[in-house]
């Protein structure tokens, strides 16, 4: 994380990859404990990763990394369960005849982020699609969309931030 905050993208990539299985296991456990189907875990993992990314400046260099990471993860898991709790509650209202105990069918496709991508402003969406879906680099994206690299960086960052805001509002 130290290297990542110093601007080392490779180290940062490695770090995010390394923590993902831990986050995934935690998200599954949390969902199971709340009596929710585990297929939502991936959305929560992505939500956590996004928050870790956007809030990485709040990690204190002198503080241990794990408590910081798990505080964000727990926060996001609670958020997600609360959101789903509300949704399940609505479902129960709507389908009062359905036997309780039968888990309500989750209508949301896995990949909340992909869904929100569509709703972003055009520039941010194009940049995010180019980098996230087509795995283009910032330089390639800039050439393809005839933008400066700086503008691509800005659009990318804004796009990620507004994705996070949309996930939060949901």
């Amino acid at each position, binding site marked *: 994380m130290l290297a*990542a*905050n110093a*601007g*080392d*993208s*490779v180290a*940062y*990539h490695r770090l*995010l*990859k390394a923590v*993902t299985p831990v986050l995934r296991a935690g998200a599954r456990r949390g969902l199971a404990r709340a009596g929710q189907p585990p297929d939502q875990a*991936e959305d929560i*993992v*992505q939500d956590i*990763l*996004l*928050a870790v*990314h*956007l*809030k*990485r*400046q*709040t*990690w*204190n260099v002198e*503080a241990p990394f794990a*408590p*910081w990471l*798990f*505080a*964000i993860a727990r*926060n996001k898991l609670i958020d997600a369960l609360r959101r789903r709790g509300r949704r399940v509650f609505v479902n129960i209202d709507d389908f009062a005849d359905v036997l309780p105990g039968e888990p309500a069918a989750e209508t949301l496709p896995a*990949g909340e*982020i*992909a869904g929100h*991508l569509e709703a972003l402003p055009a520039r941010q969406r194009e940049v*995010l699609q180019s*980098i*996230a*879906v087509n*795995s283009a*680099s*910032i330089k390639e994206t800039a050439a393809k969309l005839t933008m400066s690299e700086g503008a691509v*960086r800005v659009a*990318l*960052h804004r796009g*990620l931030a507004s994705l*996070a805001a949309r996930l*939060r509002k949901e």
Partner: protein
Amino acid sequence: MDTDRLIQTLAADNEPRPRPVGVMLAMALPVAVAIALALLLGTIGLRPDIRTAMRNPFFDLKFVVTLALALPAIALSLHLSRPEASLRGWAWWLALPLVVLVLGIFGEMMMPERLPMLTRLIGHNAMLCLSAIPLLSLPILAAALLALRHGAPSRPAVAGALAGLLSAGLAATLYAAHCVDDSPLFVATWYTLATALVTAIGALAGAKLLRY
């Protein structure tokens, strides 16, 4: 979108690096305090006898009290901008202005010539105090919340309340230069009420704005 792609995208967004919350707050607060000061000077101004007042220890004590609120509140709101932080072990700093006030009240009781208690408490313009401090604190509160949005507090309402405390403390520091009531009893009553109001606004705003 699969998670590997997302990670790749996040790693690509590693520049420009985000600024720490402390830097944001250090940039935002001086600007906001300058705006509030301009607001004070442009409307009600300083008290006319400020030069003689400065020799009165109870006039100076007001600044000690308000800064004893503002500075710990700034430090605490920075601390709480980290997701793993909690108030434990830190909250007692917030009692500091109260301790100073209590000492001030006792100090005033020792004075040989003094007005009746109720006269000192009600003072000259309590209503102005109750409205000026919240109004002056608004630009500061807005700046503090904007800066703290870069943080990740695990309890946004608490972080917002602290932003309210710090802005009320700074606004009260400015207002104290206008206020002609120097009795610690007056400060303990009306400054505290004004601060409570701003803190409540901060908590409400924080619950909405400081979630991440």
